[in-house]
C-alpha cells in the first residue's frame, strides 16, 4: 500500500515535471522566433562568422520554410532526442559541450549548497536560541549584509584578499596548470581551487538559510507540542534537536528546491569570476561570442536540472514529513 502510494506520487510528479520540460523547450523555440530578424541568422550570430552551409543547416534544424507549428514540432523532437543543436564557433554539438562541463558545475554548486545549508541552519538555530542577545544581532546583521552584496563582487573581494594580498589560495581554474599530480594530491589541489568559488556562491544562500531557520524555529518553539515536551521534562537540548529543529527544517527543504535555479544562475557569475570550467563559464564564453545555440542549450540544461532537483525535494519532503499528503 505504502509503496504503491509513493509510486503513484512519483508518477504524478514525473508527469508534471515532463510538462514543465516541454514548456521550457517551447519557451526556447519562442525566444529564437521572438528575436528580430531571421531566426537562423540570429542563432548564427551577427558577427558574420556563419557561412551559407551553416545557415542552411540551421534552417533545416528548425524547418524554417515550413509553417510555425511544424517548425515547433521539428524543434521539440530534436531537443527531446537530446540534439541541442551545433555550436559553429566551437565545432561541436551543444549537448556534448554542456555534458563535458556539467561535472565541474555540479561539484561547485553541490559544495556551495552543502556549505550554505549546514552553516546557515547552524547559525539560524544559534540565533533563534539566543534571541535578543548580541550574538543574535550579529548573525542577523551578517545575514543582511550578504543578502545585499552582489555575488560576483564577493568573489572578486575574496580573490583580492586571499589570492592577491595573502597569496594563500589560487584564484583561477579548477586545478594547477602543468602540475603532474596523482591520487590524493589531485583531490587536495582541486579542493584548494574549489574553496573560494564555493564560499562565494554559498555565502548568499547561507544568509537566506540563516534567516529562514531563525524565523521558523521561533515559530515552532511557540507551539503546543514543544510546551508539552518541556512540561513532561524532556531535556532542553533534546527539545531543540528532536522537536524544534526537525520541524523547522521542512521549510528549509522547500526553499532549497525553490533556490536551485538561483544557485545555478549564480554559478554563471561565480564561474566567470574564478574561471571555473563549468557550464556557467561555458555560458559566459558563449555570451562573448554570441553563440546562441550554446546559450539556449545552457538554459535548457539548467532548467531540466532544476526540475529534477525539485522532484527530489518533493520526494524528500514526503519521506521526512509523513503528514504530507502524497496525493497532492
Amino acid at each position: 500500500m505504502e509503496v504503491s502510494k509513493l509510486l503513484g506520487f512519483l508518477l504524478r510528479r514525473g508527469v508534471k515535471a515532463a510538462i514543465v520540460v516541454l514548456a521550457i523547450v517551447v519557451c526556447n523555440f519562442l525566444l529564437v522566433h521572438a528575436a528580430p530578424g531571421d531566426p537562423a541568422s540570429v542563432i548564427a550570430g551577427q558577427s558574420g562568422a556563419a557561412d551559407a552551409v551553416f545557415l542552411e543547416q540551421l534552417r533545416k534544424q528548425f524547418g524554417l520554410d515550413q509553417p510555425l507549428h511544424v517548425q515547433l514540432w521539428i524543434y521539440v523532437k530534436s531537443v527531446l532526442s537530446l540534439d541541442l543543436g551545433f555550436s559553429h564557433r566551437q565545432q561541436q554539438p551543444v549537448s556534448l559541450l554542456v555534458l563535458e562541463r556539467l561535472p565541474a558545475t555540479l561539484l561547485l554548486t553541490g559544495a556551495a549548497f552543502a556549505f550554505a545549508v549546514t552553516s546557515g541552519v547552524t547559525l539560524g538555530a544559534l540565533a533563534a536560541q539566543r534571541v535578543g542577545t548580541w550574538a543574535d544581532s550579529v548573525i542577523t546583521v551578517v545575514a543582511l549584509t550578504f543578502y545585499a552584496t552582489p555575488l560576483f563582487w564577493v568573489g572578486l573581494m575574496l580573490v583580492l584578499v586571499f589570492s592577491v594580498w595573502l597569496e594563500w589560495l589560487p584564484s583561477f581554474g579548477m586545478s594547477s596548470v602543468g602540475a603532474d599530480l596523482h591520487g590524493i594530491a589531485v583531490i587536495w589541489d582541486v579542493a584548494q581551487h574549489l574553496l573560494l568559488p564555493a564560499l562565494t556562491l554559498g555565502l548568499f544562500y547561507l544568509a537566506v538559510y540563516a534567516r529562514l531557520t531563525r524565523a521558523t524555529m521561533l515559530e515552532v518553539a511557540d507551539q503546543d507540542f514543544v510546551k508539552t515536551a518541556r512540561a513532561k521534562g524532556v531535556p532542553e537540548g533534546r527539545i531543540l534537536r528532536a522537536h524544534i529543529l526537525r520541524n523547522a527544517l521542512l521549510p528549509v527543504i522547500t526553499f532549497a528546491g525553490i533556490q536551485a535555479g538561483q544557485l545555478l544562475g549564480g554559478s554563471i557569475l561565480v564561474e566567470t569570476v574564478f574561471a571555473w570550467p563549468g557550464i556557467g563559464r561555458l555560458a559566459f564564453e558563449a555570451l562573448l561570442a554570441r553563440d546562441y545555440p550554446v546559450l539556449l542549450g545552457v538554459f535548457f540544461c539548467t532548467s531540466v536540472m532544476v526540475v529534477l532537483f525539485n522532484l527530489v525535494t518533493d520526494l524528500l519532503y514526503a519521506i521526512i514529513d509523513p503528514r504530507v499528503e502524497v496525493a497532492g
Partner: protein
Amino acid sequence: MKDFWRRYRRNKGAVVGLAVLLLVMLMAATAPLLFPGSPWDMASAPFMPPGEMGMLLGTDSLGRDVAAGIAHGARISLLVGAVSTAAALLVGVSLGAVAGYLGGFADDAVMRFTEFFQTIPSFVLAILLVAIFTPSIGSVVFAIAVVSWPPVARVVRAEFLSLRGREFVQAAEVLGKSRISIVLTDILPNALSPIVVLSSLMVATAILLESALSFLGLGDPNLMTWGFLIGSGRSVIRLAWWMSVFPGIAIFLTVLSLNLVGEGLSDALNPRLARQRSGAA
C-alpha cells in the same frame, strides 16, 4: 501619515537606510554637476590610486575617473531598478488580481504560468533575453521585469482571495458596481501595503540583477553602470583594486538601504505584525 512616520521611525535600521537611500538619490541627481562631462572621458593618467592627482577614488585602465563613473552609474541603477519594478508590478498585479478575484479556471491557469516562471532559472533566462534582443537599457529593463513579476502575482492573488469575500466587497457587488471598478476602487487599495513593501525589495533585487548583467558585459554599451565598472576592473584586480572595490560598495550600500527601508515600511504598514515580531525578538 504622522502615525505612519512614528511607526517607521521606531525601526532604527530603516531610518539609516532611508538616509543612505536619499544620499544615493542626491548623488544621482547631482552627477552632471559634480562630474560635468562624460564619465567615459579620460580625466587623468591611467591606474591612478585613490587620492592621487585629485582623483578621489582613482582612475581606471583608460584614465577615467572611478568616482565620476559611480556617480553617473547611480542614475542608471536607480532608473533601471524603478522602471523594471514598475513594469513587473503592472504584470504581477494584473495577473494576481485576475487569479485572486475570478478564481476557478483563471486562477489555475495563472498560477501554473507563475509556477513555471518560478521554476526556470531566472538569471539564465534574463541573460538569454538580453543577449537575444541585443543589450540596451530597454532590453535590460524588459528582462528584469520578465523574471521578477511572479512573487507579486502570488502576493496579490493571496490578498485578493482573502478580500473578495469580505462584506464591503459584497456590498459593492449588491450595489451593482462593475467588476473592474470593484477591483480597482474597493479591493486594490486594501491590498496595497504588501505590494508597497514588496516593491521596495524588488527595486533592490532589480539593481543587483542589473549590476550582474552589466558585469557580464550585457549592459547598455552607451551607459556607465556599476556592474560595468566592476567587470572592467576584474581582469586588472592585481593592478588596481580600487576599480572593483568602490563600485561594489556603492551597490552594497544602495541595496542594503532599500532592504532596510522595506523592513521599515513593513513595520509601519502592519503595526500588528511588527509588534509580534519585536515581541518574539
